[in-house]
Every structure is written in C-alpha cells, then in structure tokens.
C-alpha cells in the first residue's frame, strides 16, 4: 500500500546525544517539538528513565515514542516481578531491539539512544535504527541535528574501531564535567543551523550516585 505522504507518521524533529565515560554516562536531548515548519511546543521531554541505571532518548515521531516507552515500562515491571531486581542496561538494550523488530513491518518511527551504566558500573551507550539494529558505542547522536554533531564528536572523542584486536574500550577518558560541557557546546552548534533543534536541552548524567538532571537554554529561533 502506497505511503501517501507519511500520513501514518510524522517527524517531530529534535536531536539526541549520548556519551559514555569510565564511570558515568551523559545523555541529552533538546526539548523542541515541531511539525513541518511550525513548533508545537518548546518544552517537551524526549528522555525517559527506563530503569535505575538506564535512560532512553529518542527523536522521530513522538507518538510512537510514547507508545514505545509505555511498552518498555510494562515489560520492565514484569521483569522486576519475576527476577526481583531492576534490568541492567545491556539487558534493556536487547529488549529494546527485540521490541523494535517485533514491529518490523509497521515500525516505530523512533531513532533511539540508550544510555546508562552496565553491570560493572562503566558507562554504556547503545544506538539504534528504527527497526532494532543496535550496537554498543562510546558516543552517539540521532535526529535532525545528528549530521552536524557526529563529526564533531568523532573529532573530539576519537572512538577506536570495534574491529580492533585486542578490543579497545570505547568509553571516553574525559571527566564527567568535560563531557557535559562538550554536549552543551555540540547542542549550541547544532541549534545554529538545524531549524528543528533549539529552545532547551535536557541533560541527564547517570553515575554511581544516581541520575542528575540539568536544563540549558538554547536559541529559540
């Protein structure tokens, strides 16, 4: 059946970024919700806390994102009832991948990044496409501003190739404060040229003591 101009989907724009550190993870997303050339709201959170040490940020169609978040939250509750503990970030990553592929022939129009701490307490970032293909990486960006951000992160964070032997750690040696500053800079830059990115950026930092949240203002034009 012809797609007829995307009437089943909508792209609400926005950008998400995540960086994994040795003992922390930074995950950030802007708060602008747009459609076409209009702005629906300047104050919409694209970030969702899935488990104690696992946070998901997504850009794309926010209607599908809401449904996906509810789906994962319900599955997490079942897991907690059965196993008496929270899901680890790598486990949640696999669950998200399976959930996305389940709808391979009517996909969730969401471009997701999962960030958190793995069972060893090291930062981890998982990046996805719309149908569940995923990979653990040291950093990632998704959304309308991703094309402007990824080259900068490549330059600053110099992630080693996953094909190297012996395997090199993908997490950045940067300190937590430096990583947060990098994220702020990178969002400010993307806001300059991407019309869908701006208003505010919501930054979450996950470390051993919990999850800390910060909001930073961005250009509103």
């Amino acid at each position, binding site marked *: 059946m012809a797609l007829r101009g995307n009437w089943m989907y909508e792209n609400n724009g926005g950008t998400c970024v995540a960086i994994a550190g040795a003992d922390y993870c930074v995950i950030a997303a802007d708060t602008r919700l747009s459609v076409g050339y209009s702005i629906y709201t300047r104050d919409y959170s694209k970030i969702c806390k899935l488990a104690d040490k696992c946070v998901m940020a997504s850009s794309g169609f926010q209607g599908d994102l809401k449904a996906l978040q*509810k789906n994962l939250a*319900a599955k997490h*509750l*079942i897991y907690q*009832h059965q196993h008496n503990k929270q899901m680890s970030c790598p486990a949640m990553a696999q669950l998200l991948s399976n959930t996305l592929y389940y709808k391979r022939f009517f996909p969730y129009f969401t471009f997701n990044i999962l960030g958190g701490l793995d069972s060893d307490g090291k930062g981890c970032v998982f990046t996805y496409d719309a149908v569940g293909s995923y990979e653990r990486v040291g950093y990632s960006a998704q959304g309308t501003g991703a094309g402007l951000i990824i080259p900068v992160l490549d330059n600053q964070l110099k992630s080693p190739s996953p094909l190297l032997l012996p395997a090199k750690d993908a997490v950045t040696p940067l300190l937590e404060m430096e990583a947060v500053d990098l994220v702020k800079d990178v969002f400010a830059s993307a806001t300059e040229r991407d019309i869908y990115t701006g208003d505010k950026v919501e930054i979450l930092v996950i470390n051993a003591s919990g999850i800390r949240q910060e909001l930073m203002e961005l250009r509103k034009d």
Partner: protein
Amino acid sequence: MFRNQYDTDVTTWSPAGRLFQVEYAMEAVKQGAAAVGLRSTSHVVLATVNKAASDLSSHQRKVFKIDDHIGVAIAGLTADGRVLSRYLRNECINHAFVYESPLPVSRLVVRLADKAQVCTQRSWKRPYGVGLLVAGLDETGAHLYYNCPSGNYFEYQAFAIGSRSQAAKTYMERRFEAFNNYSRDELIKDAIFAIRETLQGEKLTSSICTVAIVGIDEPFHVIDQKIIQEVIDSVEIKEDAAAAADQAPAQDDDKSSEAAPMDI
C-alpha cells in the same frame, strides 16, 4: 471431610445442593499455614507464618507484591497462589497501560473471583486450592478482601485464614472496631500478635513470620526482618515486666459478641 458418591466431579451437584469438590478445595486453604490481614483507614497490613518443608529448605513465599498499591497473602496450595499472583500482576499492568492509573482493588478482586468461578463449572478443571487475602489502596481508601476457591469474595476489616486461624480471628474480633483509627505501627503490632495467636505457644521470632504493609504514600513492601524482631522484642519485654510485677495485664474490652464479622 466425608467421602461420598457426589464428590468426584466438580460439575456434580449433591442432592443437598453442594459442590463437594469446591468445599474440599476450601479445606486445602484451611490446612495451609496461617495468614492474617488487618486494615485501618490509611494502611493495610498482611502477616503470614513461614512454614519450611524441613530445616534444610527455605520457606515458601506466601506474600506477593502485585503492584505498588496492592499485595496478597495466600494460604493453601502455594503453587496455585503463585500462578494467580502472576495473573493479578498482568491485570494491573494492562490496566495501567490503557488507563494510566492504578487498577482499583475492587475490580481486581472481581476478576480474580470470576477466574476462580470458571474452575467450578468446567469438568476438565479443578478449583484453585488457595485462599488469597488481597490488601490494597485506591481512590476509595484502604481495602482488605478475601478471595475463596469457590469464587466468592468478601471485604473485611480484619481476617485470618489457614491452620489455627480461629485463634487469630478471636483475638481480632475483640479489637477490630478500633482498627480504623490505629496508627501504622499499632496495626503492625496487632498483626504480629494475631500471628502469635496461631502459633499456640511456639516461640515467635521474625524468622518464622513475614509482615507486609501498604499505605497512603507507602507502596506495598515486605517489612524488614530486623524491624519485626524489634517489635517482637519490645512487646515481650513489656509482657515479662508485667508478669514479673504480678500485675493484672491491661484488659481488653470484653464485648458481648455482636455480629461476628468473620464467619466462613
């Protein structure tokens, strides 16, 4: 009970209008280890006796968290209880998914009762051999329900099920009118007392009982063993002091029995 020719099938009525298989299922509940529940206007407490198959094994879980606002204690065939708990958890999750709000307790117990009733009317099934004390909080307040294998359910101020539960019921019958105004801690203490009544002289320690609570601003959770032991110790110190001083212990109001609310 009695062996007779009308008790083979759950779908066979006796001439006296009874379904013996259902009544035998309720016997299974009476044989299980005791569980008690009490409620006030703001909290509901569940307490159970932990029976272990032997000294070498761990004890069976009889208290299950169903959702943040609902928990159950079971008596009887614990395997049936585990399966029903999984069903109840699913119902709560599905309701919250669709309506973005917690499932009211009264609706949950109706679904559970309907599920139990099905097993009393199918020749290829058997009734669940477990009684459940459902404790929960919702917009209408605190609730304690008892769900029977027969498919019946009743709401209670306080109730006890399982072996030697009559002793706990008698203890609570004398006090239940005050429960609504009890504080959280008084409710926990009385739950522990009620459990002690069912032990008939056996020493009460925190290792043989499990206490769980749900309240306004307090999601359902099992109370830590250390805290329970402290409550038990504080109570026993007071009792030893009273006995040693040879005083008459503080007396309960001896109510002439009005309608005993906890039959069945």
